[in-house]
Structures are given as structure tokens and as C-alpha cells.
């Protein structure tokens, strides 16, 4: 399959490995540069790693760190605008850099399989699952057309899809998220590749499903395939990875055995990433790094470092579960992924690093013992800012709840005419000044409950009371005067803003509704709101599209705060954000709630996030409340099997389970 021309390179590599069979994958000094017009974006800079059979290497980083571009480079799909250079890029001893398009086609799918995130859009939605899985077999001539169907059934069975014959005839949207992802993996491994690259393979999946997908990838590894795992989530990769490489700004900043990197990180960025994992921190302690807090949580380089484009494909909407975690991670356009901060010679992390000095800003650190940093931290000790003590907010029982939900139920009609029950006899209370976390997997009905509390969905049964008065089943005229007292923050602020309006106009509209008149007064109030959420007044002139995901979410929070509400309903407010940005937003919400005395209904699928922000928790499954209780007690001592199952599936960093649980 490899052209004879690269035999010289092959022998060179063989010599360097001194008689041993060559490593499965060797990447040495890989750089990828995108040229768009006159601009040059260095997405990947001098990256080196290797991978053996039966081993899993995880590349971890935020969006824009270059991790996905690195993955795409290994299958030659970086696009025409990319310029790829490497001292060595070999797969099973064959040089990949000399491959032409024909040579790449023989490698792709056959020798290296690629699994992307979100099978709803990564499998062709118009073709049957069976046709998609058979495609690599037919493309590489591994099977005849008549035989393909049988092979597909075998593959579906291998990846643990029940009733393969029926599933093979269905389309991706007819499968659940977990089955879809299994089908996508089946198509990637159909031709028996030796290397599987999984780019965010479990993002947007529920935690229990995530665990199953990682088990499946683990079995591939045990069978001798090399697995290259790309993820934004350090806690998730801990499940599978033997070694971890942390990327930032196109560089590998830290690299080593998984256990070492995760338990005693030495690079300040790795430390900040680990600190930002909510389940790893005591409640009441800030998640974000000091420098992010000092500057109001939005240093230009930190929030800006995430790519501005986070849109999912146009077809993603059809049938996608609204409650799913959303399209985090690799942006589909690799060119967006590489907004490198340190264009000058310095360390790219210097702008965000609490330890940065002039050396960091002027000189790129070279690698020593797996870490590229001028001031590598000493392993490991208690992180510096973990000293704050959780302040339990005790809500006296005597206080009248702000929101009372009594036995509400709601049925929806499916497109095929059948009814399904989204919410079934749910009751909950929200007291002034408390945060009630509602946690559940997609389809648990948590978003429908939130919409009932917002007065956007009428319950079929039951009632909702707001401040002692009937809130459900009343006329919109009655409700409208009180609507401003309940505000909402959603997952994707970009779709809830008019993209043509400036931030000043977006906030000005909200401010005007509270009675503030006059351009100057509105502007002053808008600037004050921005200050409250840690954004400079200069943000007023910008448009949503020019803001990063974190900044947009801050603007959304500012807009929700404009009418000085009593209740804030947050529906997955941080699910689409990188973990360090997520940490800043969570810190902001907790601080605002404390300072303003807001009551918060916080909807999330992420138990770590729920644990961090909530006073009390409601666990939902299939439209019903499974368990409810005070957060520490519920996490420490769950009564229901489902809650136990959920907690067990949460990815936990090695050595921090006792803190989380």
C-alpha cells in the first residue's frame, strides 16, 4: 500500500529503533500552519509524540489548542489551506508526509480509523446505519456487496448494539445517542485499522453512556489497536488514557503517564485545568485561576483563546435532543482552531499564567522532563487557592418558597402521532436565596420543568405558584407584569441574541423594559451590568458574533440581571464552554447569587457542576423526580439506585474521589 519511494525513510526509522518493530505512530516536530489571505495561523507547533499498539494516548486541550488539527493531520485531512511540516511522521514505519491523495486514501479507514463527536452529524443522516458501516469495507474492496450486510451485522454486534438487523436498516436519527456513537465507532473500525483516532467521542453524551463508550474503546485497545483520544476534558480521559499530552496554543505543554499528569501536574495550565473540574473541588471554592479572577474573569487572551465559531452543523438541529450537552470541542473548520496567542516568541500561556514574568513573555520554553515551562510547579501539594471554606447556606424551613411546583405533568405529541410523557407528577420548591440543582440525563424532563417555571409551558396537571400566587394556568396578561422577576440563561446565547445588534442594544432593550429612559441612562445602566459580570464597558460596542463563548454567556447573564429579578433559571448555562471558561462562569453565578440574594434554578446534566453550585438537588429520570435532598448528603449517601448509578458514572480524576463524594 505504500509507494516504494519511501523505503529509505522506512529503513532510517528502523535503524533509529534499533531492531525493534517500529512504533505504531511516531510524530516528531509536527507543525501545521493555515494560510488565509495574508494571515498565517500556526495551529500546531513542533509537536512530538509516539504511540504503540495497545496503548492509548490522550491529547487534552481547549478548543483552539490545536488538538483536533493534530488529529486531522494524521489522516491527511487538514485541508488545502494547511501547510504541514514534520521531522518525522511515520505510521507502522511508513512515512506519511510523502503520501499523495491516492496513498492517503489507502490509509484512511483501512489503517487509521477516525471517530468524530456527535454521530447525529458525523454519520450521514440520509443513509442507513448499515450503509455507513459497510462503506469502508466496500471502498477498500474488503468485501463483496452481497457479503457486506452480514459483516455489518457482525460489527454492530461487536460494538454492543442490540438487535443489529433492525438497527442496520435504520437511519442515525432513529437511534439513541449512545447507539449512534457505537455505530459511528463500528464504521471507523470496520476495515480493521491498527490506529483509532477518537476526537471528542463522548462529548454531548450522558455520563452513563459516556462510560459505555469508553469501555468499548478500552476493548479496542485490549485487542491491540492504538487509540489516540482527543478531548477537552481531563477527567474523562482518565478512564482510558495510558499517557496524556496537554496542548495549549498549538504546543504540547505537558506530557507524561496519565496518572502522573493527572495527580501531580507541573505546568500551570494543567494545574488550572484540573482545578477547574468542578467535582474535584470543595464547594464554595472558586474554580478559576487567580489571574482570571483578578481581572474580572475575562482577560482578553483567556476568553478570546477559545475559537469564536462554535456553531454546529445546519443539520444538527433535526432531532437533536435539546437537553444534550451541545457541540463542545473541535470546531469543524480546522482553520478556526488556531488562534495562537503567543505570536511573538514567548510562551503562549503567559497571558493567562499567574506565574508569568518577562522571560515567559519573551522566550518560548523548551521541554524538560515532559514539561514546557520556565516555572514548572513542584509536584504536587495542595493547590494554593483551595483554602476557602465552603459556606453552607442554610435556608430556614419557615421561609415561604418563591417557586412552588405541585405535581405537574406534561405530555407532548411525537411527530408519529403517539404521546409521550415528558414530565410526570413533579413537585419542587425554590426558596429565596437558594440554588436548587435539577440534574438528569437527556430526556429526563428537566428542561420542560424549567420552561414551566418560566411560564413558557403550561402543565397538563398540577400547578406552579410564584411568590404565593398562581403562576400556571393564568392569562398571559396577568403573568406579563411579573415576568421580569424570573429571568433565564440558556446554553447557547448566540442563538438567543439577534446577531446584528450590538451588546449596547441587547442590554439597552432589557434595561428599557424596566423603565430606564434616555440613551445616556440606558448606556450607564448597561455598563454597570457589564461590570457586574466582569466585562469592560468597551464590550458595549461589540456584536455577539465577535465575542467568545464565555463573554457571550456573561452578556446573557447581564441581560438576565437587567430587571433585577428574584429568580434566575439557568438551563445548561455552561455546557457549551471549555472547562476553564466554564469555571469562570460558575464562579460568577455563585458570586452573583451570594451578592444579590437571587434564587437560582440550575438545570444541568453534569453532576460535578450541580454539586458545585447547588444547595439542594433534584434528580430526575424519565419525567419523574427520583430523589431530592441536600447536596452534600445526596452526593455522599444517595438513597436511590439510579442516583448511585449516575454518581458512579461521573468521570473522576484519580485521587480526588473522596473530595467529590
Amino acid at each position: 500500500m505504500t509507494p516504494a519511494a519511501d523505503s529509505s525513510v522506512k529503513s532510517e526509522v528502523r535503524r533509529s529503533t534499533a531492531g525493534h518493530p517500529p512504533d505504531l505512530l511516531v510524530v516528531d516536530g509536527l507543525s501545521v500552519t493555515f494560510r488565509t489571505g495574508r494571515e498565517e495561523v500556526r495551529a500546531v507547533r513542533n509537536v512530538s509524540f509516539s504511540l504503540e499498539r495497545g496503548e492509548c494516548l490522550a491529547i487534552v486541550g481547549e478548543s483552539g489548542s490545536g488538538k483536533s488539527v493534530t488529529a486531522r493531520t494524521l489522516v491527511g485531512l487538514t485541508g488545502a489551506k494547511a501547510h504541514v511540516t514534520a521531522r518525522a511522521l511515520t505510521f507502522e514505519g511508513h512515512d506519511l508526509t510523502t503520501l499523495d491523495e491516492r496513498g492517503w486514501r489507502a490509509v484512511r479507514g483501512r489503517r487509521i480509523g477516525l471517530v468524530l463527536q456527535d454521530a447525529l452529524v458525523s454519520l450521514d443522516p440520509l443513509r442507513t446505519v448499515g450503509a455507513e458501516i459497510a462503506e469502508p469495507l466496500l471502498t477498500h474492496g474488503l468485501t463483496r456487496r452481497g457479503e457486506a450486510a452480514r459483516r455489518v451485522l457482525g460489527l454492530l454486534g461487536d460494538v454492543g448494539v442490540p438487535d443489529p438487523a433492525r438497527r442496520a436498516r435504520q437511519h442515525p436519527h432513529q437511534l439513541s445517542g449512545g447507539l449512534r456513537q457505537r455505530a459511528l465507532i463500528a464504521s471507523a473500525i470496520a476495515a480493521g485499522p491498527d490506529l483509532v483516532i477518537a476526537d471528542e467521542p463522548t462529548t454531548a453524551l450522558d455520563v452513563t453512556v459516556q462510560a459505555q463508550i469508553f469501555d468499548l474503546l478500552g476493548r479496542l485497545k485490549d485487542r491491540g489497536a492504538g487509540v489516540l483520544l482527543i478531548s477537552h476534558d481531563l477527567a474523562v480521559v482518565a478512564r482510558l488514557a495510558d499517557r496524556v499530552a496537554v496542548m495549549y496554543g498549538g504546543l504540547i505543554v505537558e506530557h507524561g503517564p496519565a496518572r502522573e499528569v493527572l495527580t501531580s501536574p507541573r505546568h500551570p495550565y494543567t494545574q488550572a485545568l484540573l482545578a477547574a473540574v468542578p467535582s474535584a473541588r470543595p464547594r464554595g471554592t472558586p474554580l478559576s485561576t487567580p489571574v482570571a479572577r483578578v481581572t474580572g474573569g475575562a482577560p482578553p487572551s483567556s476568553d478570546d483563546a477559545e475559537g469564536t465559531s462554535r456553531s454546529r452543523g445546519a443539520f444538527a438541529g433535526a432531532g437533536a435532543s435539546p437537553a444534550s450537552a451541545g457541540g463542545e470541542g473541535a470546531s469543524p473548520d480546522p482553520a478556526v482552531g488556531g488562534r495562537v496567542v503567543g505570536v511573538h516568541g514567548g510562551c503562549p500561556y503567559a497571558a493567562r499564567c499567574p506565574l508569568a514574568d518577562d522571560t515567559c513573555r519573551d522566550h518560548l520554553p523548551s521541554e524538560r522532563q515532559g514539561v514546557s515551562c520556565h516555572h514548572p510547579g513542584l509536584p504536587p501539594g495542595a493547590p494554593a487557592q483551595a483554602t476557602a471554606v465552603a459556606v453552607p447556606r442554610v435556608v430556614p424551613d419557615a421561609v415561604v418558597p418563591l417557586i412552588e411546583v405541585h405535581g405537574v405533568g406534561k405530555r407532548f405529541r411525537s411527530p408519529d402521532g403517539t404521546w409521550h410523557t415528558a414530565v410526570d407528577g413533579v413537585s419542587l420548591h425554590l426558596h429565596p436565596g437558594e440554588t436548587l440543582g435539577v440534574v438528569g440525563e437527556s430526556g429526563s424532563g428537566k428542561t420542560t420543568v424549567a420552561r414551566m417555571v418560566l411560564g413558557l409551558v403550561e402543565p397538563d396537571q398540577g400547578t406552579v405558584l410564584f411568590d404565593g400566587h398562581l403562576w400556571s394556568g393564568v392569562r398571559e396578561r396577568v403573568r406579563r407584569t411579573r415576568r421580569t422577576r424570573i429571568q433565564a440563561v440558556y446554553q447557547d446565547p448566540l442563538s438567543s441574541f439577534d446577531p446584528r445588534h450590538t451588546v449596547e442594544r441587547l442590554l439597552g432593550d432589557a434595561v428599557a423594559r424596566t423603565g430606564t429612559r434616555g440613551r445616556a441612562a440606558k448606556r450607564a445602566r448597561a455598563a454597570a451590568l457589564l461590570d457586574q459580570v466582569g466585562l469592560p464597558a468597551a464590550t458595549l460596542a461589540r456584536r455577539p458574533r465577535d465575542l467568545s463563548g464565555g463573554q457571550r454567556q456573561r452578556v446573557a447573564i447581564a441581560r438576565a440581571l437587567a430587571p433585577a429579578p428574584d429568580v434566575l433559571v439557568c438551563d445548561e448555562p455552561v455546557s457549551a464552554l471549555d472547562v476553564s471558561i466554564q469555571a469562570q462562569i460558575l464562579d460568577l453565578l455563585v458570586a452573583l447569587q451570594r451578592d444579590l440574594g437571587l434564587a437560582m434554578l440550575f438545570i444541568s446534566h453534569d453532576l460535578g457542576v450541580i454539586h458545585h453550585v447547588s444547595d439542594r438537588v433534584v434528580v430526575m429520570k424519565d419525567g419523574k423526580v427520583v430523589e431530592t435532598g441536600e447536596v452534600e448528603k445526596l452526593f455522599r449517601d444517595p438513597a436511590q439506585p439510579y442516583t448511585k448509578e449516575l454518581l458512579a458514572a461521573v468521570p473522576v480524576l484519580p485521587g480526588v474521589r473522596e473530595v467529590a463524594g
Partner: protein
Amino acid sequence: MIAVLIRRAASALAVLLGAATLAFAALELIPGDKVAALLGPATSASEQVKAQIRAEYGFDRPIVVQYLHYLGRLVRGDLGDSYQLSRPVAGLLAEQLWPTAQLALAAIALAVALAVLSAVVTAGRRAGRAVATAWELAAVSLPSFWLGILLLTVFSFQLGMFPVVGGEGISALVLPAVTLALPIAGMLAQVLREGLEAALAQPFAVTARARGLSHTAVRVRHTLRHATVPLATLTGWLTGSLLGGAVLVETVFGRPGVGALTLQAVSNKDMPVVIGVVLLSAVVFVVISAVVDALYAVVDPRLKAG
């Protein structure tokens, strides 16, 4: 499924009834005496004769009765008689529909073929895209009568490859079909390319490439189908409007057809024929939109449920 069919049939009937009613209202609201139009501009008749004609055609009865009679005749497929030709309108339309359908279907088939070729080859490729966009823009902007005359001049008068006028045989179909097809192909190609490029930007296109498919295979096996939905919408609409008569092109090439018939009827105020053409167009659009909708469900299984 059956409920969906019933709903569709009901809405189709509603559209047809609406078209019939509007046509009837237009006929009543047009200024001037119907009898005068019936007799033609050249004839003059006594009041007695006119009254006799009124009674014969039922023009003297109450408007509601006339309307119900009109609907009753429509149900039986009777569109009335042409004032000018004194023949049943239904027969006239049936005669003229076939040449028009030949022309329209030939033009659409040619246009779709050209558009698919142009878009699939050039989508997402910078150099090819520039060339293709240029010809498509030119094709869209050409006035069809001018293009028709140009083609006639070159291929019929100078080269003598095709007949100058007439509606008989395949050779007479070529030039009018090309004339109609070129602007449509330009339009379709642009819509198709946009759809292809949107689909190529989707993650599944990357997945397909990562399985070892070539650029062309990804286009043909995956993205083309995604681009088909907007293409089908536009093609259906264009087919409908062509079947309603391509007046200019039929005139330039001296072809018989619905367009020529319409032109004649309008200039002679031959209202039963005009109404017949309106109703024919309504039927054509209802049928085509049903076909296009059925096609959607075949192309995109996600739309089946709706």
C-alpha cells in the same frame, strides 16, 4: 400515513376550488359585456339576439346559480366552449398540452443534467468555481427571446441543422429546449452548489473522507443527496411554470402549445380559454408539489414523520 394522504388531498382540493373561484370572479369583474366578447369585435347584433344569447348561456340567471353551475361543469371536466373557436376548451387544452409538456420536460431534464455536472465538478474548488459561477450568471441573465433568436440565427439559418419553425419531431425540440434550459440550469447549479458546499462542511463529509473515499465519491454518494432537497423545490416550481406555458419561447420558435394558446386567448378576450389555462396551471402546481413532497420523504427520511 392515511391521515396524511387525506389531509393532502383536502388541501389540494381547497387550492383547486380557490383557483376556480378566483377565475370565476375575475370573469365577472372584467368590465365590458360578455356577449360582445363572445360575438367578437367585428359583429354587431340586435338587442334581441343578444338577449337570446344571454338566455342560452345562462348569463341572465342569479350570480350564485351561475357559480354553482360553473362548478358543476368543472367537476364533469367541462370547461365550456371557446368564444373564438367555438370548441370545448378542455379539448383545446388537451391538444396544446402535449407539445408544451414535451418542451418543458426536455428543458428541465437538460437543465438538471447541466446543473448537476457544473455543481458537482466545481463545488468547493476555488478555480472551477469561478469559471462555473461566471457562466451560470451569464446564463441566468440572458433574455430567453434573445437567446432563442441567437440560436435560431446560428443553428437554423446559417448551419441549417434544425428547423426554423414548427413543433414536429425531436429536431424541432432541440433549440427551444436549449433556450429554456440554459437560464434554468444556471439557477439550479447555483442552488445545488450552495447545498453541496453546505453538506461538504458537515462532519459526516469528514467521516466519509476518513473512510478513504475520494473527493468525487463523497460528492456523489453523500453530499449530492443533501443538496437535492432545495434543488427539488426549485425544479418543481420551474416545471410548473413551464407547463403553464413558455410564451416567449413558443412564440419565437413558432411552436404550438399552451403558451401560444394563452397569448391568443388573452389578446382576443377569450375568457373560457384563459380560465381553462389558469385552472390547468393550478392542477399542474398541485400535482407537482405533491410529487416534490413525496420526493422529500424519499431523499430525507427525517422528514417522513412531519
